[in-house]
């Protein structure tokens, strides 16, 4: 075989393998989504949204309390983590842009962004659960807030950096203080990007399970008390999937489908918002 043929063959084989790798990735995505829909949809009924999680041995039951608990904790989490993240991101992009402090904070934030969530759970256990004396919805929300924070900081900073400097300079030239420039010029210009960050953060925390195991725990009953344990979809999946009751396993699948649908929907909305924000962002 000539050297040329060998080179061409190597090229063909390598590129073929890379196409195979992509196919493998897509096959697994398809397999997971397919099972999720097949198993989850068969358990979808009205009672899923109207009844509480069943006790062992019961044949009926739904996920109402878990859906409510997940919703409340995610909402509280983003209400706490959102403003903190937005303001911290503002500092990194505007006030502290080129300072040493900002680059340290940026680095730590990036580290927190990929930190294992179970460690955040242990932290909140020590920080909130131990002083309060019991597991509670509030501590779950705090854990979710801490997990959402780095996501929001990062996207807020990136989006504010996309606002043209000329626009901010024009505002400064009119005599506006930085706070006025930021709130009246930069925020409106970067709004859809910042909303995207919030949506991505909601997507991230609504599927978090590990930190809720030692903060919100679980609750078989309807509870609106923030100081008490509360049911939530991820922990329900965790307990029900490992049980031996058929209807519990069915509910775990339905809960899994619910969460995944919510997250995929949020991710897709976020994607559409970003592609509207900047021509460069339309690429992906």
């Amino acid at each position, binding site marked *: 075989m000539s050297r040329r043929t060998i080179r061409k063959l190597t090229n063909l084989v390598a590129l073929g393998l890379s196409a195979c790798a992509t196919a493998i990735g897509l096959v697994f995505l398809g397999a997971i989504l397919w099972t999720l829909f097949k198993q989850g949809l068969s358990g979808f009924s009205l009672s899923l949204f109207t009844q509480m999680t069943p006790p062992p041995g019961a044949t009926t039951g739904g996920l109402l309390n878990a859906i409510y608990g997940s919703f409340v904790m995610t909402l509280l989490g983003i209400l706490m983590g959102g403003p903190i993240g937005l303001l*911290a991101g503002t500092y990194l992009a505007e006030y*502290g842009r080129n300072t040493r402090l900002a680059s340290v904070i940026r680095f730590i934030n990036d580290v927190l962004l*990929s930190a294992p969530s179970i460690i955040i759970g242990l932290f909140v256990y020590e920080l909130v659960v131990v002083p309060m004396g019991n597991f509670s919805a509030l501590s779950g929300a705090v854990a979710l807030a801490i997990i959402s924070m780095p996501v929001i900081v990062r996207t807020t900073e990136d989006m504010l950096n996309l606002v043209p400097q000329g626009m901010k300079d024009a505002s400064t030239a009119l005599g506006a203080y930085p706070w006025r420039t930021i709130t009246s010029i930069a925020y409106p210009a970067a709004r859809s990007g910042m909303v995207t960050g919030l949506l991505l953060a909601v997507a991230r925390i609504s599927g978090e399970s590990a930190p809720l195991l030692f903060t919100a725990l679980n609750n078989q009953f309807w509870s609106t008390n923030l100081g008490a344990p509360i049911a939530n979809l991820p922990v329900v999946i965790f307990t029900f999937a490992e049980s031996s009751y058929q209807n519990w396993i069915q509910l775990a699948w339905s809960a899994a489908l619910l969460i995944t649908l919510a*997250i995929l929907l949020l991710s897709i909305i976020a994607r559409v918002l970003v592609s509207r924000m900047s021509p460069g962002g339309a690429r*992906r």
Partner: protein
Amino acid sequence: MNEMAAVGGTRAARHAATQRLLERVFGGTTLAMALLVLLVLGGVAVSLLRGAWPALSHFKLAFLTREIWNPVTDEYGALAAIYGTLVTSAIAMVLALPVSFGIAVFLTELAPNWLKRPVGVAIELLAAVPSIIFGVWGLFVFAPILQDTVQPWMMDTLGALPGVGMLFQGPPAGIGVLTAGIVLAIMIVPFISSVMRDVFETVPDVLKESGYGLGATTWEVIWNVVVPHSRTGIVGGCMLGLGRALGETMAVTFVIGNAHDIATSLLAPGTSISATIANEFTEATTALYRSSLIALGVLLFIITFSVIAAARLMLMRLDRRALSSV
């Protein structure tokens, strides 16, 4: 007339004073919130160490070297959990690396434009699926497949080999260290390939075009131009994936088997640091038990944070905006 000017002057002065005050309040608040990020990391380290102190001072260094984990006699060692964490992550990396590289190559150099975007989005959606879904899927769908078909085959072929054979022996349980490693690999492929793709896209077209101009094939351009140019980014992306694999909890907990043993066979059940914490934390009855679990958390904190920090340092040199997906 003069009076009016004076009134206007004080109003302007008052307005300026309000503006300055608002400026100080707003600027100060953003700084305080930014400092909160540092405080969280510091708080994590301090509170974990405080919680782990009873166990660490009781067992001392033996905590790291003992395999025993016995709630009945209240004796704990972290070796089995550390072993499980490292081995599952190693399996995940070995499997995920080539696949991620292939996906990144496909997306940047090979795919036609109409295919690039949908495939890229699909892979990124895989990254958005929460880890507990991978766990449930692994337990109910993937583990049975492994148990019925793949593992018996492995035992017959790989298990018969001298040397490495002992890694693939024992009853095919379906769940175990190997299964956990494979599920982890599926989980981290989207992360690593997204980083790699973003890094590949930072390679200037001129460099690639000069390669093609010299008559190189697509693969030769990738291997000799794109890869060397993005070496740091590739390693950083891999370590980011590794950090994720080391700390992943829910996907592992379902399929690793939760046995505090170090078995030679990869098919045997084991445990990992995160799986142990997730399974046993709410059942920990004694103070020493709970403290030992938090001590495991400290170990995980040290391992993952050093890996992630190294990864971030490597990726920092690149344009941050190029890395949109992490």
